[in-house]
């Protein structure tokens, strides 16, 4: 997949490209209990968004729903990604993940999303580089070299390159999360979804990771949606969404700031 720059998504009037449009999304759990209700949500390309809220409020459910992983969803989650890199002839293909089949959702995730989890979910017996390039197990052969190079580059950028051949079992929490970030970025996805990426780290490691992650995302002009309780992380994001009992409210000051940055 080619690298996508933020400029590719700006139309001639310099309005930010809407990369995600959520409409009337409802996610239900056992006994038809409503877990999440999002009448409308728009996210622009290149924005970084924090989702915060109390435990059990529905933050992770929202994140998993956006990735097409949640069950019992209704409404629409339309991801709109440009297909051509030529800015003059740009067209975008909208995909409603709710309407996609299970296999099509998987394809969408591997081509479009990078995912980071609270407890890293790495293969302990494999080295850092093997973990970061895990998608080479199922990616088309012609992509493998690019994935390998990108993973090595990201690991180097995150300070892991020298220990990339060590097994994960010997890594600290911060190092593990860096490897997980490298794995998420190895396919060069335009969108990064992170579920509590600093929750398993101490303050110092969290701060370092936040610095590195935000710098990397901004440098590569990715769209990032992060679920987090960590205020240090949330404050670094363009927008903050708050989830309370499955309902989303937005901190307007952050949204405004985000729009200004996206439009500049």
């Amino acid at each position, binding site marked *: 997949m080619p690298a996508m720059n933020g400029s590719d998504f700006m139309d001639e009037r310099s309005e930010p490209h809407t990369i995600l449009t959520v409409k009337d999304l409802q996610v239900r759990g056992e006994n038809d209990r409503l877990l999440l209700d999002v009448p409308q949500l728009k996210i622009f390309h290149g924005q970084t968004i924090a989702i915060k809220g109390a435990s059990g409020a529905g933050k992770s459910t929202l994140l998993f729903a956006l990735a097409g992983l949640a069950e019992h969803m209704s409404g629409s989650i339309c991801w709109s990604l440009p297909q051509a890199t030529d800015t003059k002839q740009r067209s975008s293909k909208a995909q409603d993940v709710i309407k996609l089949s299970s296999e099509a959702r998987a394809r*969408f995730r591997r081509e479009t999303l990078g995912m980071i989890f609270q407890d890293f979910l790495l293969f302990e017996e494999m080295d850092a580089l093997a973990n970061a390039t895990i998608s080479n*197990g*199922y990616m088309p052969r012609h992509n493998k070299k690019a994935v390998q190079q990108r993973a090595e580059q990201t690991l180097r950028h995150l300070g892991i390159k020298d220990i990339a051949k060590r097994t994960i079992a010997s890594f600290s929490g911060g190092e593990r999360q860096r490897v997980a970030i490298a794995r998420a970025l190895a396919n060069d996805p335009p969108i990064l979804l992170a579920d509590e990426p600093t929750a398993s780290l101490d303050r110092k490691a969290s701060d370092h990771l936040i610095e590195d992650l935000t710098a990397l995302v901004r440098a590569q002009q990715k769209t990032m949606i992060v679920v987090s309780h960590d205020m240090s992380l949330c404050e670094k994001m363009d927008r903050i969404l708050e989830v309370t009992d499955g309902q989303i409210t937005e901190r307007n000051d952050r949204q405004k700031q985000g729009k200004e940055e996206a439009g500049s």
Partner: protein
Amino acid sequence: MIDFLPLFMLDLWDALSPFMQDSLLFALYLMPCIMVGLYVSRGSRPLPLVRAMLWQFRWTSLMFVALIATSVALGVGLLAQERGLRKGTAKAAEKFDLIIAAPGSEVTNVLAAVYLQPTDLPLLDGKLYNEIANHDHVSFAAPIAFGDSYQGAPVVGTTLDFLKHLSGDLSKGRAFEKTFEAVIGSAIDLPLGSHFTPAHGMGHTAEADAHEGEAFQIVGRMQPTGSPWDKAILVPVEAVWLVHGMGTGHKPQEGARLGPPFDPDYFPGTPAILVRAEELWANYALKSEFTRKESMAIFPGAVLSQLHTILGDIRSVMSIMAVITQILVAGGVLTGLVILTRLFARRLALLRAIGAPRRFVFSIVWNFAAILIGAGAVSGLGLGFVTTALLSNIISERTDILIKASLQWPEFHLLAGFVSITILLAMIPAGLALLQPAIRDLRA
């Protein structure tokens, strides 16, 4: 097994060599799992992840492998052991075309005359012996007189003809030429030139000093025969009769002459006579002729065949039990695999979350199972062979019948069938791993 094929294919099949037929059957048995493996793993590289999972759950994986290996070893060992016993006993009896003994149990007579198992048998007289020995179709008839022993080795009185028939050329020394000379079996640990005095009887009841003063000199050693005769000591039958105070079978004026003809008036009797016919067909005529009121002619091969049939029936029953065991073990292993996949469910959920195709996730679980089953089956083959070899040695030690352990096509076919079926069944845990929603495992 291949009866369903059209006639022309059956002809084609029959035209193949046995090796080709067995190889094709082996490949045919393995084909389903190879096809599934190729389809499942096509275009992906699941093995690095499978290797990592195997290493992480190495002790559990080893337990599975051991379990599968044990069940395969049971089936393989049973087949190999039964064949080894069958071949060993048949080889031990191959020099004994026809035995004539007093009426009684055929099995007992064969066990005594062929396998030298200690038994008290009634004696045949000299008149009958001469009738047999002088028969037109008889090449030679050798009395086999047993009952004495030395250090547990049976001392058997017989003739030079029988010695030559049994051993051919000797491996060391020469055949007995005098009454108190002896030729030892290949497994007897006594030097040539040494002397011994036989005990009367065998085993615990043997009387060591019953023949005191009667010393035999060992003058030769036989070639190995793979039969209990390797642990026997052959002496002239005249010597056996002499040490029992029964004369020599010859007139006194004939002196110390050895071998036939014997004088019926001086013939002390023999429990069994080995008969070698001039022609193969004559054996049947001789059997018929000498199966009468005072004698019984036995084909040891036919008796063995009956025993083998019983052995085969036992093998069949045990094979069914082994197959049931294998089915139970396969079921247990697959159930265990379902449980084991729950242990790495989060990793599988991660793969699905990051967009791995369902077939890739399926292939990880399937390859994991296939490697355990394959490793277990190959280990089982080795374990089965080693167990069979050990058991064969023990049986050979105890019976002196040379039982050789070997792996042959039936074992490989059994293995291929087991592997194929269980690996196909391994699709069940692999499929079940996909049924669980990824989000539940990610949040677990």
